[in-house]
């Protein structure tokens, strides 16, 4: 990502230097944030990169409007989230994935449980089954280094709300996945 930051002064040399420096500073970690948020929805690296690029481009175009620069990361995260949701809704893949997964809690055969790919599929299905508000908090909290306070800052909501949503999201996912733990422990 350092290479990315280093390449930008050429592109935005004609803009105001201070504004360019501010944007460069935000490029240090925002592309990774946008990529991971998109990955949490799309589960596809190439598509997540497309969404992250689009989010960064929109940020570049609208950078002068983001008066409160401290909110920039939150803006990037929310934009990447919306773009990823739009993309997956447009393709209709979410519905197909949900249909393919066992979200009704019916335990599959033990030999399938042993397959990590199958477990991963059920985790994805349980995550997709969450309401959007809970899912966004769950994804952001799962990104490395983000505690509830940082998630609250990104989403501009109270930290208590983040804790509550996080608990309900985990609880709902645990209900869907508890058979995995029982089968793997047996």
């Amino acid at each position: 990502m350092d290479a990315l930051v280093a390449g930008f002064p050429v592109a935005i040399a004609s803009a105001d230097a201070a504004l360019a420096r501010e944007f460069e500073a935000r490029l240090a970690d925002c592309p990774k944030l946008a990529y991971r948020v998109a990955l949490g929805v799309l589960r596809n690296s190439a598509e997540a990169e497309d969404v992250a690029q689009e989010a960064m481009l929109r940020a570049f175009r609208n950078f002068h409007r983001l008066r409160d620069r401290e909110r920039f990361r939150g803006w990037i995260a929310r934009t990447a989230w919306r773009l990823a949701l739009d993309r997956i809704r447009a393709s209709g893949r979410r519905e197909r994935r949900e249909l393919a997964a066992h979200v009704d809690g019916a335990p599959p055969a033990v030999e399938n449980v042993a397959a990590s790919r199958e477990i991963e599929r059920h985790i994805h299905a349980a995550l997709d089954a969450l309401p959007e508000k809970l899912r966004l908090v769950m994804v952001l909290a799962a990104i490395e280094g983000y505690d509830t306070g940082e998630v609250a800052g990104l989403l501009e909501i109270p930290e208590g709300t983040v804790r509550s949503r996080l608990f309900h999201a985990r609880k709902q996912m645990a209900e869907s996945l508890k058979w995995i733990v029982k089968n793997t422990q047996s």
Partner: protein
Amino acid sequence: MDCEEYAVLMLDAALGAPASGREAELRTHIPACAACRAAQQDAAALAAAVGGGVAAVVAGEPSPQFAARLRARIAAEPAPVAWPWFAGWRSSLGVAVAAAAAFLLLRMPHHAVPAPPNVPAASLSARAPDLPVTRTAPATVRRAIAREPHRARNGADASPFAHPEILVPKGQLALAVWLDDALTGRKLDGRQIAALDERVAAKLEVKAIEIAPLEVPSLASPGNASAAESVEQGRQ
């Protein structure tokens, strides 16, 4: 409390639920209950599976080509607008100028406008839209003034085009005269002119004057024979 309730409490605690206030009771019970110890392990494993599973979903780095692609796309973009505060300042300045203009307009001294004859002041706004009156002369008049500018410069009465004729609907002549006097005599303030201007401009109906040639009956026609005889007798 039975072990099933403890199991629920332990799972909630493992998933990040707020403190239930029964943690001390639970800590006392678990060492003495093998089922609850197993339930605690299950809860911890389940919470780890949930948290770890989602963390695995979002783990990863953009590809090495990500930076080059983004750099190329941004290079193709027009440069971002610099000095965002300037744009805000410009819009704020526009608002300030508009506010100052409105303030000056309101503070501007103006003469009281006498009510038009036979027309209640309150009914003026209701009748104004029908007035075929305009503050600008028709195009033909403007062209005539342009051809003879010296006549227009010699005062308001020097040119016959200074007061173009207008048609006024029946019953509104007094109102039109009053309005013309008010406009030409600058007796209306800015707000009144603006209000009238809006209404007049919204519905302006100007009808052309039809001038028919005067037909003079011929003296030689049969119908005028008696008249010709009387003229002849008068001569005699």
